[in-house]
Protein backbone atom coordinates (compact mmCIF):
# COMPACT_ATOMS: atom_id res chain seq x y z
CA UNK A 1 0.00 0.00 0.00
CA UNK A 2 3.03 2.19 0.24
CA UNK A 3 3.17 1.84 -3.51
CA UNK A 4 -0.25 3.35 -4.07
CA UNK A 5 0.81 6.97 -4.29
CA UNK A 6 4.61 6.79 -4.62
CA UNK A 7 6.96 9.05 -2.70
CA UNK A 8 10.58 9.80 -1.88
CA UNK A 9 11.73 11.82 1.12
CA UNK A 10 15.27 12.30 2.37
CA UNK A 11 16.92 14.42 5.06
CA UNK A 12 20.61 15.10 5.64
CA UNK A 13 22.64 16.79 8.34
CA UNK A 14 25.31 19.37 7.59
CA UNK A 15 27.35 21.77 9.66
CA UNK A 16 24.85 23.57 11.94
CA UNK A 17 22.19 23.07 9.30
CA UNK A 18 20.02 20.37 7.81
CA UNK A 19 18.24 19.78 4.52
CA UNK A 20 15.02 17.90 3.84
CA UNK A 21 13.90 17.05 0.33
CA UNK A 22 11.04 15.25 -1.35
CA UNK A 23 9.77 14.48 -4.80
CA UNK A 24 6.60 16.14 -6.09
CA UNK A 25 4.61 13.42 -7.80
CA UNK A 26 1.21 12.32 -6.62
CA UNK A 27 -0.01 9.22 -8.41
CA UNK A 28 -2.73 6.64 -8.24
CA UNK A 29 -0.71 3.52 -8.88
CA UNK A 30 0.73 4.08 -12.33
CA UNK A 31 -1.21 7.18 -13.31
CA UNK A 32 0.16 10.60 -12.33
CA UNK A 33 -2.45 12.88 -10.82
CA UNK A 34 -0.40 15.89 -9.68
CA UNK A 35 3.15 17.18 -10.07
CA UNK A 36 3.17 19.71 -7.25
CA UNK A 37 2.22 17.63 -4.25
CA UNK A 38 3.60 18.80 -0.94
CA UNK A 39 5.14 16.13 1.28
CA UNK A 40 7.35 18.24 3.52
CA UNK A 41 5.37 20.26 6.05
CA UNK A 42 6.44 22.91 8.50
CA UNK A 43 5.55 22.49 12.15
CA UNK A 44 7.47 25.56 13.27
CA UNK A 45 10.23 27.48 11.50
CA UNK A 46 12.92 25.20 12.87
CA UNK A 47 11.06 21.87 12.66
CA UNK A 48 9.86 20.08 9.56
CA UNK A 49 8.22 16.74 8.93
CA UNK A 50 8.26 14.84 5.65
CA UNK A 51 5.61 12.16 5.26
CA UNK A 52 5.93 9.42 2.67
CA UNK A 53 3.45 6.67 1.94
CA UNK A 54 -0.29 6.93 1.53
CA UNK A 55 -1.08 10.58 0.72
CA UNK A 56 -4.37 10.77 2.63
CA UNK A 57 -2.77 9.37 5.79
CA UNK A 58 0.12 11.82 5.35
CA UNK A 59 -2.25 14.78 5.27
CA UNK A 60 -4.38 13.49 8.16
CA UNK A 61 -1.31 12.86 10.28
CA UNK A 62 0.06 16.31 9.48
CA UNK A 63 -3.19 17.97 10.52
CA UNK A 64 -3.32 16.06 13.81
CA UNK A 65 0.31 16.90 14.55
CA UNK A 66 -0.14 20.59 13.87
CA UNK A 67 -3.16 20.51 16.19
CA UNK A 68 -1.16 18.92 18.99
CA UNK A 69 1.73 21.26 18.46
CA UNK A 70 -0.51 24.33 18.61
CA UNK A 71 -1.92 23.15 21.93
CA UNK A 72 1.62 22.59 23.16
CA UNK A 73 2.58 26.10 22.10
CA UNK A 74 -0.37 27.54 23.97
CA UNK A 75 0.41 25.60 27.14
CA UNK A 76 4.18 25.91 27.18
CA UNK A 77 4.55 29.28 25.40
CA UNK A 78 7.37 27.95 23.26
CA UNK A 79 7.99 25.69 20.29
CA UNK A 80 8.45 21.97 20.66
CA UNK A 81 11.98 20.59 20.56
CA UNK A 82 12.61 18.12 17.73
CA UNK A 83 13.38 15.24 20.09
CA UNK A 84 10.09 15.78 21.92
CA UNK A 85 8.21 16.04 18.63
CA UNK A 86 9.74 12.78 17.45
CA UNK A 87 8.50 11.06 20.61
CA UNK A 88 5.05 12.57 20.03
CA UNK A 89 4.90 11.24 16.47
CA UNK A 90 6.19 7.85 17.59
CA UNK A 91 3.51 7.59 20.29
CA UNK A 92 0.75 8.63 17.87
CA UNK A 93 1.84 6.00 15.38
CA UNK A 94 2.24 3.24 17.98
CA UNK A 95 -1.25 3.97 19.30
CA UNK A 96 -2.45 2.57 15.98
CA UNK A 97 -0.22 -0.49 16.24
CA UNK A 98 -2.84 -2.94 15.03
CA UNK A 99 -4.40 -0.67 12.40
CA UNK A 100 -1.59 1.64 11.40
CA UNK A 101 -1.34 4.82 9.41
CA UNK A 102 0.41 3.91 6.17
CA UNK A 103 3.00 6.63 6.54
CA UNK A 104 6.71 6.79 7.21
CA UNK A 105 7.64 10.15 8.70
CA UNK A 106 10.99 11.87 8.54
CA UNK A 107 11.46 14.53 11.17
CA UNK A 108 14.16 17.17 10.81
CA UNK A 109 14.76 20.15 13.04
CA UNK A 110 17.23 22.39 14.83
CA UNK A 111 17.22 21.59 18.52
CA UNK A 112 18.79 23.21 21.55
CA UNK A 113 21.69 25.47 20.55
CA UNK A 114 20.75 24.91 16.89
CA UNK A 115 22.16 21.39 16.78
CA UNK A 116 20.54 19.64 13.78
CA UNK A 117 18.35 16.63 14.55
CA UNK A 118 16.96 14.09 12.09
CA UNK A 119 15.09 10.90 12.59
CA UNK A 120 12.80 8.54 10.75
CA UNK A 121 10.30 5.91 11.86
CA UNK A 122 8.49 3.00 10.34
CA UNK A 123 4.71 3.13 10.13
CA UNK A 124 4.22 1.98 13.74
CA UNK A 125 6.61 4.44 15.31
CA UNK A 126 9.96 2.65 15.70
CA UNK A 127 12.26 5.65 15.95
CA UNK A 128 15.60 5.59 14.22
CA UNK A 129 17.90 8.48 15.05
CA UNK A 130 20.72 9.08 12.64
CA UNK A 131 23.65 11.40 12.57
CA UNK A 132 24.04 11.54 8.82
CA UNK A 133 20.96 10.96 6.68
CA UNK A 134 17.55 9.32 6.73
CA UNK A 135 15.39 8.18 3.82
CA UNK A 136 11.87 6.92 3.27
CA UNK A 137 9.39 6.23 0.47
CA UNK A 138 9.16 3.94 -2.54
CA UNK A 139 12.58 5.09 -3.72
CA UNK A 140 14.16 4.37 -0.33
CA UNK A 141 16.41 1.54 -1.52
CA UNK A 142 18.04 3.72 -4.19
CA UNK A 143 18.15 6.62 -1.76
CA UNK A 144 20.06 4.51 0.76
CA UNK A 145 22.66 3.73 -1.87
CA UNK A 146 22.94 7.26 -3.23
CA UNK A 147 23.16 8.91 0.18
CA UNK A 148 25.62 6.33 1.48
CA UNK A 149 28.08 7.20 -1.27
CA UNK A 150 27.44 10.93 -1.66
CA UNK A 151 27.22 11.95 1.99
CA UNK A 152 30.13 13.69 3.71
CA UNK A 153 30.02 14.94 7.27
CA UNK A 154 30.04 18.69 8.11
CA UNK A 155 28.95 20.09 4.79
CA UNK A 156 28.16 23.78 4.42
CA UNK A 157 24.57 24.67 3.43
CA UNK A 158 25.35 25.19 -0.27
CA UNK A 159 27.25 21.96 -0.63
CA UNK A 160 24.58 20.16 1.40
CA UNK A 161 21.94 21.43 -0.97
CA UNK A 162 23.84 20.14 -4.00
CA UNK A 163 24.47 16.76 -2.41
CA UNK A 164 20.93 16.14 -1.25
CA UNK A 165 19.50 17.28 -4.60
CA UNK A 166 21.80 15.01 -6.57
CA UNK A 167 21.04 12.07 -4.28
CA UNK A 168 17.29 12.67 -4.58
CA UNK A 169 17.24 13.18 -8.34
CA UNK A 170 19.41 10.18 -9.11
CA UNK A 171 17.37 7.91 -6.83
CA UNK A 172 13.95 8.92 -8.11
CA UNK A 173 15.19 8.32 -11.64
CA UNK A 174 15.40 4.68 -10.69
CA UNK A 175 11.87 4.56 -9.28
CA UNK A 176 8.79 4.66 -11.48
CA UNK A 177 6.46 5.88 -8.77
CA UNK A 178 8.34 8.99 -7.62
CA UNK A 179 9.96 11.96 -9.29
CA UNK A 180 8.48 14.73 -11.43
CA UNK A 181 10.72 17.35 -9.88
CA UNK A 182 12.03 17.89 -6.42
CA UNK A 183 11.51 20.23 -3.50
CA UNK A 184 14.43 20.95 -1.18
CA UNK A 185 14.42 22.90 2.04
CA UNK A 186 17.75 23.92 3.61
CA UNK A 187 17.50 25.26 7.16
CA UNK A 188 20.25 27.11 8.99
CA UNK A 189 19.92 28.95 12.31
CA UNK A 190 19.28 32.23 10.47
CA UNK A 191 17.38 31.41 7.31
CA UNK A 192 15.28 28.88 5.46
CA UNK A 193 15.80 28.34 1.74
CA UNK A 194 13.16 26.54 -0.31
CA UNK A 195 14.10 25.48 -3.81
CA UNK A 196 12.14 23.68 -6.47
CA UNK A 197 14.30 21.42 -8.61
CA UNK A 198 14.03 20.63 -12.27
CA UNK A 199 13.89 16.91 -12.78
CA UNK A 200 12.93 14.36 -15.37
CA UNK A 201 9.16 14.39 -15.88
CA UNK A 202 8.78 10.72 -16.48
Amino acid at each position, binding site marked *: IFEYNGSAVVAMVGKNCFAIASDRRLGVQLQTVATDFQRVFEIHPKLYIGLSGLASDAQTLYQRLVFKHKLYQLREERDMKPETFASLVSAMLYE*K*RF*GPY*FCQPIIAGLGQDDVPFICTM*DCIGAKEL*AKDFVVSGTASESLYGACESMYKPNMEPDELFETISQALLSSVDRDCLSGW*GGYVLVVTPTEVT*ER*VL*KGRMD
Partner: protein
Amino acid sequence: MAGSMEIPAKGGFNFDLCRRNAMLEKNGLKMPGFRKTGTTIVGLVFRDGVVLGADTRATEGPIVADKNCEKIHFMAPNIYCCGAGTAADTEAVTDMVSSQLQLHRYATSRESRVVTALTLLKTHLFNYQGHVSAALVLGGVDVTGPHLHTVYPHGSTDTLPFATMGSGSLAAMSVFESRYKEGLTRGEGIQLVADAICAGIFNDLGSGSNVDVCVITKGKTEYLRTHQEPNPRTYASSKGFSFAKGHTEVLSTKIRQLKLKPEVTEGDAMEEE
Protein backbone atom coordinates in the same frame (compact mmCIF):
# COMPACT_ATOMS: atom_id res chain seq x y z
CA MET B 1 -13.85 9.81 13.22
CA ALA B 2 -17.09 9.36 15.11
CA GLY B 3 -17.58 11.41 18.25
CA SER B 4 -15.16 14.11 19.33
CA MET B 5 -11.90 14.20 17.45
CA GLU B 6 -9.42 14.41 20.26
CA ILE B 7 -10.63 12.88 23.51
CA PRO B 8 -7.63 12.87 25.86
CA ALA B 9 -5.98 9.50 25.33
CA LYS B 10 -6.92 6.87 27.87
CA GLY B 11 -3.74 4.98 27.04
CA GLY B 12 -3.49 1.62 25.35
CA PHE B 13 -4.11 0.89 21.69
CA ASN B 14 -6.53 2.61 19.37
CA PHE B 15 -8.28 0.42 16.81
CA ASP B 16 -9.99 3.16 14.77
CA LEU B 17 -8.28 2.43 11.48
CA CYS B 18 -8.61 -1.37 11.55
CA ARG B 19 -11.80 -1.57 9.53
CA ARG B 20 -10.46 0.77 6.87
CA ASN B 21 -7.18 -1.15 6.67
CA ALA B 22 -9.01 -4.48 6.33
CA MET B 23 -11.03 -3.00 3.47
CA LEU B 24 -7.86 -1.75 1.76
CA GLU B 25 -6.24 -5.16 2.15
CA LYS B 26 -9.28 -6.85 0.65
CA ASN B 27 -8.96 -4.54 -2.36
CA GLY B 28 -5.53 -5.97 -2.99
CA LEU B 29 -3.16 -3.60 -1.22
CA LYS B 30 -0.28 -5.14 0.70
CA MET B 31 0.25 -4.43 4.39
CA PRO B 32 3.51 -2.56 5.01
CA GLY B 33 6.41 -4.42 6.55
CA PHE B 34 7.47 -3.28 9.98
CA ARG B 35 11.05 -2.66 10.95
CA LYS B 36 12.39 -5.73 12.72
CA THR B 37 15.52 -5.87 14.77
CA GLY B 38 16.65 -9.25 13.26
CA THR B 39 19.08 -9.55 16.06
CA THR B 40 21.50 -11.35 18.22
CA ILE B 41 20.93 -10.58 21.89
CA VAL B 42 22.60 -12.44 24.75
CA GLY B 43 22.95 -12.35 28.49
CA LEU B 44 24.95 -14.23 31.06
CA VAL B 45 25.39 -14.31 34.81
CA PHE B 46 28.95 -14.02 36.09
CA ARG B 47 30.47 -13.95 39.54
CA ASP B 48 29.38 -10.46 40.58
CA GLY B 49 26.42 -9.73 38.32
CA VAL B 50 25.01 -9.86 34.82
CA VAL B 51 26.45 -9.03 31.38
CA LEU B 52 24.09 -8.24 28.49
CA GLY B 53 25.15 -7.95 24.87
CA ALA B 54 23.52 -7.03 21.55
CA ASP B 55 24.42 -6.29 17.95
CA THR B 56 23.35 -2.98 16.38
CA ARG B 57 21.68 -3.70 13.05
CA ALA B 58 18.01 -2.86 12.35
CA THR B 59 16.53 -4.38 9.20
CA GLU B 60 13.55 -3.51 7.03
CA GLY B 61 13.05 -6.62 4.96
CA PRO B 62 16.42 -7.28 3.35
CA ILE B 63 17.64 -3.68 3.69
CA VAL B 64 19.64 -2.42 6.65
CA ALA B 65 17.62 0.48 8.01
CA ASP B 66 19.89 1.48 10.88
CA LYS B 67 23.54 0.51 11.08
CA ASN B 68 23.95 1.52 14.68
CA CYS B 69 20.77 1.24 16.67
CA GLU B 70 20.53 0.68 20.44
CA LYS B 71 18.99 -2.60 21.44
CA ILE B 72 19.89 -2.57 25.12
CA HIS B 73 17.13 -0.56 26.76
CA PHE B 74 17.11 1.02 30.17
CA MET B 75 14.52 -0.31 32.59
CA ALA B 76 15.87 0.81 35.96
CA PRO B 77 19.34 1.89 37.13
CA ASN B 78 20.02 -1.74 38.04
CA ILE B 79 17.99 -3.49 35.32
CA TYR B 80 18.52 -3.44 31.55
CA CYS B 81 16.65 -5.27 28.80
CA CYS B 82 17.73 -6.33 25.30
CA GLY B 83 14.95 -6.53 22.71
CA ALA B 84 14.48 -8.55 19.52
CA GLY B 85 11.49 -8.72 17.18
CA THR B 86 9.51 -5.78 15.86
CA ALA B 87 11.49 -2.64 16.76
CA ALA B 88 8.47 -0.49 17.66
CA ASP B 89 7.12 -3.20 19.98
CA THR B 90 10.38 -3.70 21.88
CA GLU B 91 10.87 0.03 22.32
CA ALA B 92 7.29 0.69 23.38
CA VAL B 93 7.10 -2.24 25.79
CA THR B 94 10.43 -1.48 27.47
CA ASP B 95 9.61 2.25 27.77
CA MET B 96 6.23 1.46 29.26
CA VAL B 97 7.57 -1.01 31.84
CA SER B 98 10.44 1.36 32.65
CA SER B 99 7.93 4.11 33.49
CA GLN B 100 5.83 1.71 35.55
CA LEU B 101 8.94 0.63 37.46
CA GLN B 102 9.81 4.23 38.21
CA LEU B 103 6.34 4.93 39.56
CA HIS B 104 6.65 1.78 41.64
CA ARG B 105 10.00 3.00 43.00
CA TYR B 106 8.44 6.27 44.02
CA ALA B 107 5.58 4.48 45.72
CA THR B 108 7.72 1.92 47.60
CA SER B 109 11.00 3.87 48.03
CA ARG B 110 12.97 0.74 47.20
CA GLU B 111 15.26 -0.37 44.40
CA SER B 112 13.32 -2.22 41.67
CA ARG B 113 13.58 -5.98 41.54
CA VAL B 114 14.12 -7.89 38.32
CA VAL B 115 11.11 -10.13 38.93
CA THR B 116 8.89 -7.03 39.07
CA ALA B 117 9.98 -6.02 35.60
CA LEU B 118 9.60 -9.60 34.46
CA THR B 119 6.02 -9.90 35.72
CA LEU B 120 5.01 -6.55 34.19
CA LEU B 121 6.46 -7.57 30.83
CA LYS B 122 4.96 -11.05 30.73
CA THR B 123 1.45 -9.95 31.70
CA HIS B 124 1.47 -7.24 29.03
CA LEU B 125 2.71 -9.58 26.32
CA PHE B 126 0.35 -12.38 27.31
CA ASN B 127 -2.60 -10.00 27.20
CA TYR B 128 -1.89 -9.35 23.54
CA GLN B 129 -1.44 -13.06 22.80
CA GLY B 130 1.83 -12.66 20.95
CA HIS B 131 0.67 -9.92 18.58
CA VAL B 132 3.05 -7.51 20.32
CA SER B 133 6.08 -9.18 18.86
CA ALA B 134 8.82 -8.53 21.42
CA ALA B 135 11.36 -11.16 22.49
CA LEU B 136 13.44 -9.87 25.39
CA VAL B 137 16.46 -10.76 27.47
CA LEU B 138 16.04 -9.10 30.85
CA GLY B 139 18.91 -8.90 33.29
CA GLY B 140 19.75 -7.04 36.46
CA VAL B 141 21.09 -7.12 39.98
CA ASP B 142 18.83 -6.37 42.92
CA VAL B 143 18.87 -7.06 46.67
CA THR B 144 18.25 -10.76 46.09
CA GLY B 145 21.22 -11.11 43.73
CA PRO B 146 21.88 -11.22 39.98
CA HIS B 147 19.04 -12.45 37.73
CA LEU B 148 18.72 -13.21 34.03
CA HIS B 149 15.43 -14.00 32.28
CA THR B 150 14.16 -14.43 28.74
CA VAL B 151 10.66 -13.33 27.74
CA TYR B 152 8.98 -14.70 24.62
CA PRO B 153 6.37 -12.78 22.59
CA HIS B 154 3.52 -14.91 23.86
CA GLY B 155 4.36 -14.19 27.45
CA SER B 156 6.32 -17.25 28.61
CA THR B 157 9.55 -16.70 30.51
CA ASP B 158 12.66 -18.67 31.42
CA THR B 159 15.21 -18.06 34.14
CA LEU B 160 18.67 -19.05 33.00
CA PRO B 161 22.37 -18.59 33.75
CA PHE B 162 22.99 -17.70 30.09
CA ALA B 163 20.52 -16.90 27.33
CA THR B 164 20.34 -15.85 23.70
CA MET B 165 17.44 -14.57 21.57
CA GLY B 166 16.89 -13.29 18.06
CA SER B 167 17.74 -14.60 14.62
CA GLY B 168 21.38 -15.03 15.59
CA SER B 169 20.57 -16.89 18.79
CA LEU B 170 21.79 -20.28 17.56
CA ALA B 171 25.18 -18.92 16.57
CA ALA B 172 25.56 -17.17 19.92
CA MET B 173 24.25 -20.14 21.93
CA SER B 174 26.89 -22.40 20.38
CA VAL B 175 29.59 -20.11 21.77
CA PHE B 176 27.98 -20.06 25.21
CA GLU B 177 27.38 -23.79 25.38
CA SER B 178 31.00 -24.57 24.67
CA ARG B 179 32.65 -21.92 26.86
CA TYR B 180 30.31 -20.98 29.72
CA LYS B 181 31.18 -22.00 33.25
CA GLU B 182 30.03 -20.89 36.68
CA GLY B 183 31.93 -18.15 38.46
CA LEU B 184 33.32 -16.24 35.47
CA THR B 185 35.19 -13.03 36.21
CA ARG B 186 34.11 -9.70 34.77
CA GLY B 187 36.72 -9.70 32.02
CA GLU B 188 35.96 -13.27 31.01
CA GLY B 189 32.22 -12.55 31.01
CA ILE B 190 32.57 -9.52 28.75
CA GLN B 191 34.87 -11.41 26.40
CA LEU B 192 32.47 -14.35 26.17
CA VAL B 193 29.50 -12.07 25.48
CA ALA B 194 31.44 -10.15 22.83
CA ASP B 195 32.48 -13.42 21.17
CA ALA B 196 28.92 -14.69 21.17
CA ILE B 197 27.62 -11.50 19.55
CA CYS B 198 30.42 -11.61 16.99
CA ALA B 199 29.40 -15.17 16.15
CA GLY B 200 25.90 -13.83 15.48
CA ILE B 201 27.19 -10.86 13.49
CA PHE B 202 29.39 -12.93 11.19
CA ASN B 203 27.12 -15.94 10.72
CA ASP B 204 23.60 -14.48 10.76
CA LEU B 205 22.49 -12.16 8.00
CA GLY B 206 19.97 -10.37 10.20
CA SER B 207 22.63 -9.23 12.68
CA GLY B 208 25.59 -7.01 12.04
CA SER B 209 27.57 -3.85 12.71
CA ASN B 210 28.89 -3.32 16.22
CA VAL B 211 28.74 -5.00 19.62
CA ASP B 212 27.09 -3.24 22.55
CA VAL B 213 27.74 -4.59 26.04
CA CYS B 214 26.16 -3.71 29.36
CA VAL B 215 27.66 -4.89 32.66
CA ILE B 216 25.43 -4.73 35.73
CA THR B 217 26.85 -5.34 39.19
CA LYS B 218 25.62 -4.53 42.65
CA GLY B 219 25.55 -0.75 42.85
CA LYS B 220 27.12 -0.06 39.44
CA THR B 221 26.07 -0.36 35.83
CA GLU B 222 28.35 0.19 32.85
CA TYR B 223 26.90 0.60 29.40
CA LEU B 224 29.70 0.01 26.90
CA ARG B 225 28.17 1.32 23.69
CA THR B 226 30.15 0.12 20.68
CA HIS B 227 32.40 -2.04 22.76
CA GLN B 228 33.72 -3.60 19.59
CA GLU B 229 33.58 -2.57 15.98
CA PRO B 230 34.40 -5.69 14.01
CA ASN B 231 33.15 -4.16 10.74
CA PRO B 232 34.77 -0.84 9.95
CA ARG B 233 33.64 0.81 6.72
CA THR B 234 36.17 -0.02 4.03
CA TYR B 235 34.77 1.39 0.86
CA ALA B 236 34.52 5.15 1.44
CA SER B 237 36.55 6.96 -1.17
CA SER B 238 38.96 9.43 0.36
CA LYS B 239 38.06 12.22 -2.03
CA GLY B 240 34.30 11.67 -1.78
CA PHE B 241 31.79 13.17 -4.16
CA SER B 242 31.78 16.88 -4.53
CA PHE B 243 29.33 18.84 -6.56
CA ALA B 244 30.15 22.34 -7.70
CA LYS B 245 27.75 25.04 -6.62
CA GLY B 246 25.10 25.59 -9.25
CA HIS B 247 25.39 22.03 -10.49
CA THR B 248 21.74 21.26 -9.83
CA GLU B 249 19.12 22.90 -12.00
CA VAL B 250 16.76 24.95 -9.87
CA LEU B 251 13.40 26.21 -11.04
CA SER B 252 12.64 28.63 -8.22
CA THR B 253 14.18 29.75 -4.93
CA LYS B 254 12.56 31.34 -1.93
CA ILE B 255 14.64 32.50 1.03
CA ARG B 256 13.01 33.35 4.31
CA GLN B 257 14.89 34.92 7.20
CA LEU B 258 14.18 33.37 10.57
CA LYS B 259 13.13 36.02 13.03
CA LEU B 260 14.42 35.54 16.54
CA LYS B 261 11.43 34.95 18.76
CA PRO B 262 11.06 37.53 21.54
CA GLU B 263 12.18 36.11 24.84
CA VAL B 264 9.49 35.70 27.48
CA THR B 265 11.10 36.72 30.76
CA GLU B 266 9.67 35.90 34.13
CA GLY B 267 7.94 38.88 35.67
CA ASP B 268 7.36 39.18 39.38
CA ALA B 269 4.73 36.78 40.60
CA MET B 270 1.41 38.41 41.44
CA GLU B 271 0.86 39.01 45.09
CA GLU B 272 -1.62 36.62 46.65
CA GLU B 273 -4.30 38.71 48.29
